[in-house]
């Protein structure tokens, strides 16, 4: 099945306009695989015919579904486990000490896809009940894809999904086997909430002590990435903790964050040094 360069350009423009994500040349191979189910459902005779239907506006939901199919929902439990160990022992611990008076912790997983990262965070907390006893903890997962959020809320994973990154002991402790699928336990589901959210066009869904935005920003242009970093910074207090994907960094992408000197691998907001007073004032 062939897709013309023109159709690729149309899809790329649609994706970028709605989500800020760029359809890099290296991802072009995914287009046909991603849209083939939609093409079959609509009985389109070719990929180009499908793109024509999408842009014709005859079905307003069609472009949403095409965009959803093009998004990369790749995620798994405890992805880059060393990073989660670091977050647990350093980042969360720093916040725990700093918030001892209020005992309130808010965590945002931005771009949480089908929820594995959010449930990973819930497991980190649930495994240490004594450490977090008496705390009010919100773990909020957001994603652009309504379909992904629906699956995240459901908390049911295939055999293939459940064993990617999840320690078997956690699987036995926190999930129930239902035929060939695995359902996250009610107590873990009660710790989390999910909502659809567009990082590009909507303000952050509140203020958060810890923000995870992992393997999301790499799909944005430099300009959009800078904008999103700014949005995330506006949702965090000065001592908040930012966690990116294992291969990602803030360096060269934003002035809002710096590497956490106490905890390499995590990031914190840049505290701008107060401007020096004019020389004549300083001299007085």
């Amino acid at each position, binding site marked *: 099945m062939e897709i013309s360069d023109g159709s690729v350009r149309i899809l790329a423009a649609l994706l970028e306009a709605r989500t800020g994500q760029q359809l890099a040349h290296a991802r072009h191979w995914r287009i046909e695989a991603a849209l083939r189910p939609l093409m079959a459902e609509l009985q389109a005779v070719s990929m180009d015919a499908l793109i024509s239907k999408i842009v014709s506006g005859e079905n307003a939901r069609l472009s949403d579904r095409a965009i959803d199919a093009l998004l990369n929902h790749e995620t*798994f439990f*405890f992805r880059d*486990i060393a990073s989660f160990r670091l977050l647990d022992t350093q980042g969360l611990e720093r916040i725990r000490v700093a918030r001892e008076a209020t005992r309130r912790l808010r965590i945002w997983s931005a771009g949480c896809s089908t929820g594995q990262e959010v449930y990973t965070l819930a497991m980190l907390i649930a495994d240490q009940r004594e450490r977090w006893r008496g705390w009010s903890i919100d773990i909020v997962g957001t994603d652009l894809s309504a379909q992904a959020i629906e699956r995240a809320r459901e908390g049911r994973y295939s055999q*293939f999904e459940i*064993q990617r*990154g999840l320690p*078997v*002991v956690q699987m*036995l402790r926190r999930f129930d086997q239902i035929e*060939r699928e695995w359902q996250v336990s009610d107590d873990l589901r009660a710790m989390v909430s999910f909502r659809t959210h567009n990082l590009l066009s909507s303000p952050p869904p509140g203020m958060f002590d810890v923000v995870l935005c992992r393997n999301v920003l790499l799909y944005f242009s430099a300009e959009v990435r800078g904008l999103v970093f700014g949005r995330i910074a506006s949702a965090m207090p000065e001592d908040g903790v930012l966690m990116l994907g294992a291969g990602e960094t803030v360096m060269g992408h934003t002035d809002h964050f710096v590497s956490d000197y106490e905890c390499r691998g995590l990031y914190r907001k840049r505290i701008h040094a107060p401007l020096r007073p004019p020389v004549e004032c300083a001299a007085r």
Partner: protein
Amino acid sequence: MMKTCLVVDDSKVIRKVARHILETLEFTVTEAGDGQEALDRCRADSPDVVLLDWNMPVMSGIEFLRALGQEALDHRPKVIFCTTENGIAHIRAAIDAGADEYVMKPFDRETLESKFQLVGVA
């Protein structure tokens, strides 16, 4: 230094697939066709990790695991079950017998890599 993995499976095809994945993860790979042969390899080679099938002739995976627990080895390898036995009762039995991790077939490279990370050999 490269880590060593002993692949224990009575299927040559599965051993070949596992070897291919493990070599891309930079493991040195040895093979055994049943639990008894695996036990001999553990005594001789001291692998870092064992990727273990359940149903095999001569000595099954679970029998191997119990026998391994009785061995006076200087270095006990990590053991990851890798099997089509996907029911919760089998998984619990494997963990109770001393398995460090559990992979349900079919699996892919990322799943295997994540399990090796979990047991500390990747």
